[in-house]
């Protein structure tokens, strides 16, 4: 595609840069996770994006993540990035990454040093209708961790009562 066309296309190729497509294609973490502690299904009703996501935690840290994601490239790339990077994080780590992603999208902030991959979503900042696509997997993961922690709290609670 010529440079002129490229310019005329207003940066849409940056939006769909190779990193996005690579992550989407790689689909890290794809598949249902058996024996998960928590499972979440989340929709973006306006888009039809949909993710089912499971996590297994150990001592508050994610040890495994599985997801099945139907949606746009941005959503799938975000899910795949989490499939690769989430293991090892705790709830706090996920919250920090989500906040960083929101800051990138909404305020054009640079990605934090330990999450350079989030930078690939920067061009989506200009497209408000796409923010939800990118964030959907992060929201699903936060819910799953919340569920897992509530579940383990419930188990603790139950233990207590025994």
């Amino acid at each position, binding site marked *: 595609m010529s440079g002129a066309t490229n310019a*005329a*296309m*207003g940066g*849409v190729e940056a939006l*769909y840069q190779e990193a996005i*497509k690579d992550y989407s294609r790689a689909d890290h973490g794809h598949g249902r996770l058996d024996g998960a502690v928590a499972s979440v299904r989340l929709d973006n009703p306006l*888009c039809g994006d949909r993710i089912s996501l499971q996590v297994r935690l150990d001592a508050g840290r994610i040890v495994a993540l599985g997801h099945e994601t139907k*949606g*746009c490239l941005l959503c799938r790339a975000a899910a795949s990035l989490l499939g690769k990077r989430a293991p090892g994080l705790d709830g706090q780590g996920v919250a920090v990454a989500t906040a960083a992603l929101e800051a990138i999208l909404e305020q054009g902030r640079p990605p934090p040093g330990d999450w350079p991959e989030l930078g690939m979503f920067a061009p989506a900042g200009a497209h408000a209708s*796409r923010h939800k696509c990118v964030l959907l997997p992060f929201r699903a993961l936060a819910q799953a961790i919340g569920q897992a922690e509530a579940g383990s709290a419930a188990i603790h609670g139950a233990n207590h009562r025994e």
Partner: protein
Amino acid sequence: MSAAAALRAKFPLLVANPGLHYFDSAATAQMHRSALDAVVAHETGARANVLRGSYRLAEAADRAYEAARQSAARFLNAAADEIVFTGGTTAALNLVAQSFGCLLEPGDRVVISQAEHHSNFVPWQMLRERRGVELALIPVLPDGTLDLASLARVIDDRTRLVAVTQCSNVTGARTDVAAIVAAARRVGARVLLDGAQAVQHGPQDVQALDVDFYAFSGHKCFGPGGVGVLWGRAELLAAMPPFLGGGGMIGAVTEEGYTWAEPPRRFEAGTPPIAQAVGLGAALDWMMGLDWAPIHARESALCAALIDGLRRIPHVRLLGPEPSSARAPIVSFDIAGLHPHDICQVLDAQGLALRGGHHCAQPLLAALGVEACTRASLALYNDEADVAALPAGIVRAIGVLK
């Protein structure tokens, strides 16, 4: 100047955006200058509340509002006192589901189709919950048209109302209204037509269609948003209780109770969308002055050319009926492995405005076996350049996204 160019010149947004290829008229058609001018003229020259004032400004407002009702009546070939102004198609359909719905009994059947927009789907699901009415569906065939062979079974003798779209907002498939009406009449059922996707293609004749209710939105036929029309046969409206309560829809109010005004006011509670109705009237007047035969011929030819262009692109699956004359100029498609939002995004970067998603027709998409699709819809201002640009844009989009 081509016919389309002459028409485009009357649409301020299109004039201001000469590079824009607007393919989303099925969601919202662009606004004709006469409609916009009428809104401005009303707000600056005759703004007052209607129906209750005897000063000249209020009389002018009243006259303008009632003239708009006359325009809507002529547009549908109906009587003015059968025209109810609503907030839009959705509000009109909910009005029928509630006010006509009140007259139904548990066990009565309402029939809709699998092809309905959510606005003609959910109100009937709500009625089912509220009154124990049975809701039955006319299935669609793989091309998106209604399965007419099912009519005798689905429209049974408990059926009181058949509510279907005149045209699918996804596949463009035109409903065989005569077949529906015949099946409904056989069992004494009433017929409601959702005209949201028909009115942008010219005036309608509810007498010739032989239906009982007709609903449409101003923003779909080159008029303002925030206004729509429900037409209903006088004897049906007269038998229906009001839907919303408030100023203007009453005969008298006491602490004990209230009496109803006659239709159409019975169904127009509160201050109506006055300037919007006036703008809609202007849009309809303009449409009634057009020569539609050549416009229809052009819309059909463009639609056929578009289908042809899209069919040449590998991996593109087209939805909807053949031949293209069986549909309004709407073409939806799916590209294996690509999501409609990404496609629309890359098309937008090329000045092509299309909408992707479920188009508020999830049951239809489920029946057609797709999660989401990309839709190109045409109106009288689209031209050959638009239709030539789209297939090329899609080929590029595939290049960017794959």
